């Protein structure tokens, strides 16, 4: 069996363990909120473009839904296997460590992307805010899911209670510190994603906004660095 087959086998193993009914139900329910918000905005007399941008995309979508969905799945991809000591069944296999990390990243993305992108895009679309905001929301959501999954994959492998630490990063660092301090904003996935949405949809820029190129390139750099560190951690891991 070739390397591709082994990556596929690792992917199936990890994907199967991520897809628990509890996670899908809770995060699926969170995904209903942007849809309901979109319907409510359509029925309201508010400026739907601005309201959908602020409420569905910036505040709820990129501020909460995307990081939480990414955190739950990505931190569990290796984190569950570390906690229940099944990592050994992946680790002790003749598969390059980067391929195991790629499989875990793929498993996380394949669950987190639809659970994030579809509700946000659907909510914006239902609100009647227009196709430019839908396009911006899709770009911003995809790039932030990719970056968050890469960051939280390593967190789950390396840190106990990774959900708690991930939430602390999302709520304290991104939710408060990075929104006020310009230096801190350079290390916030959320700021780049919000900047990307605003520039694509041509709506009001968030505070500490970055340029278009930085909004795409920096999260991808975060992704590559985070994946590289995770590969290194996995190679050096003490496996129980």
């Amino acid at each position, binding site marked *: *069996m070739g390397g591709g*087959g*082994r990556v*596929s*086998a*690792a992917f*199936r*193993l990890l994907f*199967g*363990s991520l*897809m628990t009914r509890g996670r899908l139900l809770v995060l699926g329910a969170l995904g209903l909120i942007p849809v309901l918000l979109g319907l409510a905005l359509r029925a309201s007399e508010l400026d739907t473009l601005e309201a959908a941008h602020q409420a569905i995309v910036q505040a709820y979508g990129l501020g909460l839904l995307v990081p939480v969905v990414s955190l739950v799945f990505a931190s569990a991809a290796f984190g569950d296997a570390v906690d*229940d*000591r*099944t990592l*050994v*069944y*992946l*680790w*002790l*296999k*003749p*598969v*390059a*460590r980067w391929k195991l990390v790629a499989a875990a990243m793929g498993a996380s993305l394949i669950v987190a992307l639809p659970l994030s992108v579809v509700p946000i895009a659907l909510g914006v679309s239902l609100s009647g805010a227009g196709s430019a905001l839908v396009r911006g929301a899709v770009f911003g959501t995809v790039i932030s899911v990719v970056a968050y999954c890469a960051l939280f994959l390593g967190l789950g492998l390396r840190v106990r209670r990774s959900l708690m630490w991930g939430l602390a990063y999302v709520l304290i660092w991104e939710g408060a510190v990075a929104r006020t301090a310009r230096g801190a904003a350079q290390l916030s996935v959320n700021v780049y994603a919000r900047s990307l949405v605003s520039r694509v949809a041509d709506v009001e820029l968030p505070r500490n906004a970055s340029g278009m190129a930085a909004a795409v390139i920096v999260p991808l750099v975060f992704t590559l660095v985070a994946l590289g560190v995770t590969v290194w951690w996995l*190679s050096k891991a*003490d*496996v*129980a």
Partner: protein
Amino acid sequence: MSTASTIDVVSVTKWFGDVVALSDVSFSVSAGVTALLGPNGAGKSTMLRMLCGLTAPSRGTVRVLGVAPRGDVSLYRRIGLVPQQESLFEGMTAYDFVTVSGELAGAADPGPKAAKWLETVELDPGDRRPISTYSKGMRQRVKVAAALVHDPELVVLDEPLEGLDPRQRLRMIELFRRLGSEGRTVIVSSHVLDEVEKFGSRVLVIVQGKLAAEGDFHAIRELMEDRPHRVRVRCDDARSLAAGLVETGAALGVRVDGEDVMVDTNQVGALRRTLASVARERGTRLYEVVPLDEDLESVFRYLVERRR
């Protein structure tokens, strides 16, 4: 160090923080079955993890099939491990799990091989129930099938008989012996002396992180039986019986402890005969004769003290 050895462990020490799990352990292992015997917490699992590269030694070297097991992932194609923990990928069927294990290990035709090994360990490859519904014994057998599905040269099994019923234990022991006779290196850990006896193998005894003894099982068994024993004798006149035993010279040491006589001897059988005659001569009634250190822990302690 033997050139035919598949495993060479040289002066290995492993510590976790302030805790020394293994201390200056050296041994070599060749093809066939080798049992790693020791009480719980002795360092057996740590040793097995190091053989598989799952953790690095703090000091010393480990070589498995000619290479250092940590860092060279291609070696893992040649190793099959049954870890001690029960947890598996709970939502999968046994067949799917063993097949995926084979795929990951690079086995050709993993599906048919998974079915074959599941049948070998008396599990039904067609069982569609998830592993979460399996008993401990069934999980053990799934783990064994998953460890063997890619035909490894080195098979490492950490307490693989736990949770199995007596018949399954015998079947599993037969399987390990067969794997050893096929030229594979099989390392099985256990804390149960009688289990190890059935492997009919070479034994490494690890106690308190040290290699306490190694060699043929029967030689180690003799060593264990020849050690000094302590026996408690309860009778109606402890002082008189103790004096009589001292006069016969049948005991290494005699001490009166309330109504009991504590006797140290290295010949338990001879002591029992002497006790009966001394009690008869002195008109003392014997109530109870209890060996105090027949448990495996005391055997292990003796082996450690003997090495010092």
